[in-house]
């Protein structure tokens, strides 16, 4: 049995799934004063009458770290940067304890100038006089050679419990993002550790020993040990939960699709290309900070079933704000939901009040009520359509670096739309008209996010470089920096990358038949230097891509409107 819990901004949802069937669901409001209690309350209710021994895993999508960051409830971090030559980024938002070191490595990881231990000792002395709780250590090009970060770490390790080194967080290049990511990781480390300890304690009391996995923004999960090292990976997993929930609720399609989660306040939009999720090119942004945290590409717009509909200067406006519930559900302001109620597509608690409110506005703007209701609904469809077009323009212009890719000119062209959320079913026929695409919606969607969290399987991504001139193979994500021979080649690198990814999958508890390791990119460059012959610079990116532990059994299949 799998337990899945999704903690959102307002509600916390939980599901118990056995053999692909939904056994139990719960839904509670989140207690903002005590996030742990919210989760625990939900878990307790789910586990009533369930034998702890039957639980195989607990998958959590939590906002613990996200909330700590946006509410600025974070540790004091001492940040040590070795910026090397290059662009002078100004880091103003890294707390009060920022220290710069001389020394650098270049783009291949070759040491240009050594660490200055005297400088380091001065920083140590200075930091010791301040209330610093955690450290973040980041060097330019540290993924190519982590030696300095490690040496600085060793120099401080007896003084601080939480030390984050930049190269551990991602194999991707982007120094300013590595700095932000390492800072955030250090800043939330103790919050996440406390949460974990509470959780483990409480579970132990119940006699539950099942492993815990945490959902990441890329739609995969990470085990607790991994999450304790890289708590920043757990931020912004909400959209990923919703995305994975949709993957579980809809049929597999190896085509391009647009996924829409329409809620009361906002609508989230995602894409599949040949059935594979589209990711953020570099990493996700949180609290105006750009990070290297891998994430499913999603765009959120201020448009939902409860968006405020009003007349401004004789034109109808919708959103981006939600003032309260729809009139049909006890609110005071007209919403798209009320338009759907008027059109007979939804039933509210107060349909008469809702219809009166709509008629009132219709009179004000000089339209027949039905015409107004249709106009509102079609405006919602139009806004979604425009947003999708804008996103696609942007995604289709993402840079490519090879002639093959450029000539291929693979553009994302959705063949269908999958939609969940309160107004999904009622809105589907209208959206179908606006988008000129088939729109599918599932039988039940209320706990889609918890289902997504429950069924998400672990993911791993690695960025390998093998440099036969330096005779070093590196995989920053796995802390691998190994010797290789002159004769190392692309085939060997690809085999090894797959082996490493599979092994990481096994460690994360994935059964062999579920690992599905794959090479994402692989290239080998001839390096010619002077007269010393030809060496190779080999680059391989491999992953276990996001997927489902099991497909949800259909109580009833999804519908096309």
């Amino acid at each position, binding site marked *: 049995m799998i337990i899945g819990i999704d903690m959102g901004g307002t509600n916390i949802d939980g599901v118990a799934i056995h053999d692909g069937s939904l056994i139990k669901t719960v839904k509670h409001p989140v207690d903002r004063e005590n996030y742990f209690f919210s989760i625990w309350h939900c878990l307790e209710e789910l586990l009533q009458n369930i034998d702890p021994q039957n639980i195989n895993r607990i998958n959590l999508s939590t906002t613990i770290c996200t909330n700590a960051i946006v509410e600025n409830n974070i540790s004091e971090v001492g940040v040590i940067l070795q910026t090397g030559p290059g*662009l002078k*980024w*100004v880091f103003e938002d890294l707390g009060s304890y920022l220290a710069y070191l001389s020394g650098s490595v270049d*783009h291949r990881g070759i040491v240009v100038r050594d660490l200055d231990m005297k400088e380091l000792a001065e920083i140590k002395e200075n930091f010791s006089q301040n209330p610093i709780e955690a450290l973040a250590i980041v060097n330019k090009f540290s993924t190519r050679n982590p030696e300095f970060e490690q040496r600085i770490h060793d120099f401080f390790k007896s003084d601080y419990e939480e030390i984050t080194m930049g190269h551990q967080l991602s194999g991707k*290049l982007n*120094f300013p993002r590595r700095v932000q990511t390492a800072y955030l990781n250090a800043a939330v480390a103790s919050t996440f550790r406390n949460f974990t300890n509470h959780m483990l304690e409480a579970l132990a009391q119940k006699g539950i020993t099942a492993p815990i996995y945490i959902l990441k923004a890329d739609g995969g999960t990470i085990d607790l040990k991994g999450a304790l090292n890289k708590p920043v990976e757990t931020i912004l997993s909400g959209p990923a939960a919703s995305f994975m929930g949709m993957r579980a609720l809809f049929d597999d399609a190896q085509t391009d699709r647009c996924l829409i989660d329409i809620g009361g306040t906002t609508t989230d939009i995602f894409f599949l290309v040949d059935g594979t999720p589209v990711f953020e090119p570099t990493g996700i942004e949180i609290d105006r900070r750009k990070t290297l945290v891998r994430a499913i590409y999603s765009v959120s717009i201020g448009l939902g079933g409860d968006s405020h509909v009003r007349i401004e200067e004789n034109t109808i406006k919708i959103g981006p704000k939600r003032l309260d519930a729809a009139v049909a559900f006890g609110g005071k302001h007209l919403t798209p939901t009320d338009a759907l109620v008027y059109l007979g597509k939804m039933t509210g608690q107060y349909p008469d009040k809702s219809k009166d409110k709509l008629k009132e506005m219709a009179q004000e703007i000089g339209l027949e009520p039905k015409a107004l209701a249709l106009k509102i609904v079609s405006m919602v469809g139009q806004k979604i359509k425009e947003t999708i077009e804008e996103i696609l323009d942007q995604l289709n212009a993402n*840079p490519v670096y090879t*002639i093959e890719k450029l000539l291929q000119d693979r553009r994302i062209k959705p063949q269908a739309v999958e939609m969940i959320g309160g107004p999904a079913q009622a809105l589907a026929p209208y959206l179908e008209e606006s988008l000129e695409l088939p729109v599918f919606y599932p039988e039940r969607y209320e706990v889609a996010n918890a289902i997504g969290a429950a069924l998400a399987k672990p993911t791993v991504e690695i960025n390998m470089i093998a440099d036969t001139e330096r005779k070093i193979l590196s995989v920053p994500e796995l802390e691998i920096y190994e010797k290789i021979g002159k004769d190392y080649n692309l085939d060997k690198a690809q085999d090894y990358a797959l082996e490493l990814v599979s092994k990481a999958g096994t460690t994360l508890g994935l059964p062999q038949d579920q690992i599905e390791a794959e090479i994402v990119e692989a290239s080998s460059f*001839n390096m010619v230097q002077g007269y010393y012959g030809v060496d190779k610079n080999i680059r391989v990116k491999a992953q276990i891509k996001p997927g489902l532990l099991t497909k949800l059994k259909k109580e009833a299949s999804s519908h096309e409107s």
Partner: protein
Amino acid sequence: MKAKNTLGLILFPAFDWAISPTHPEREERLLYTQDQILEEGIEDIDGIHFFNPGIATTKDINRVHFCYPDPETLLTESHFIAAGGMKRAFDAVLGGETDKSFALVRPPGHHAQRVVYGDRGFCIINIEAVGLEYARKKYGDRRVTIVDTDCHHGDGTEDIYWNDPDTLFISFHQDGRTLYPGTGYMEELGGPGAYGYNINIPLPPNTGDEGFQYVLENTVMPILEDFQPDLIINSAGQDNHYTDPLTNMNFSAQGYAALNHRLNPDIAVLEGGYSIQGALPYVNTGIVLAMAGLDYSGVYEPDYHLGKWKQTDRVTSQVQDIARRVLENWKNKEALAEKKFKGKKTVQRQRQVYYDTAGIMEGQIQEFKVCPDCPGVNMVHSKNDRGAQILGITIPRNACAACEKEGYHIFEDKSSSSKQKKYLQDLLNDRYLTSSD
């Protein structure tokens, strides 16, 4: 971080194309440049946008070149894309998307002349000229200055704009007596329609940052002040760098960035530069930052330290002398033209062109009509050592009616040898014809 000037960056390293596996123009060339640009977080600077290149058409190529036997046979996809990258750079700026643009594309183009039998100096087509002529057709004619800061003489660009008074070509390079392609002397001033508008600045080996700075400040900037171009293009070859394996100059990343900053070009394009680890990552980052109006003072090479690459006094005085003479030529260009072309109806120029990469020798005679009303119709009679013979006729963009008519007359004349392939490049009407089609 926010760029002061918005910048369109066309970074297309063509990771799947090489002239040959160990040729300097190979897949690896922009690998470390891309690494550096990624690691610096350039993609996250507000106002810097990354664009994919377009793909040039054969018509775009024919606007500039007489390709023998034809563009499809000579060019690979990478050439169409590099030229397409240049088109994208012009679209970004002239279409109003960004203030400036930089095409970091390969292979380069500045050795490709009007007649093309194959690869010269790693270039087959002149991508900046292809981009510029495309832009002139699309956005209207403009007065343009091309400043070529590659270490090799930009002999291809010189040839293409030899007789075009609206395209001022200025080439900085290591003296042709010491380096490929062996041309680029101060006396090469242009054809009768544009005498003085081709400016060569041959610099002695071991010229350093201060030498380039001196010439820019004392010669190039005053000339630009006079010429008042609508658009400035920097052919930003990077082989003047002190680490370049093919040349003997002492220019640094700081020097390149400072030059770009002072020159303030609208569009830059990568040319040569084959110190792919020690120079390109830093020079390109420096140019990107300079174009975006950002602080580039932190960009320097691992082995750079002030003083090490300081030029000698002897080089300094040579550079100063050259700078002075180049400026004098510019100031006296009308008088010099009068002396050279007075009373002549046509001007002939005979040349030999060697295609080092392709191993082809070409002999050509160019013939320029001296016309009082326009730059004049002109022709190139060319033969190569593999038996090809061509006649290329160019009707300039702003040709007078008489020159236009004469161009067609020569093209349609049936008396010439049947072995000869004829090309008509009618830039006035944007029509491109060949005889054997």
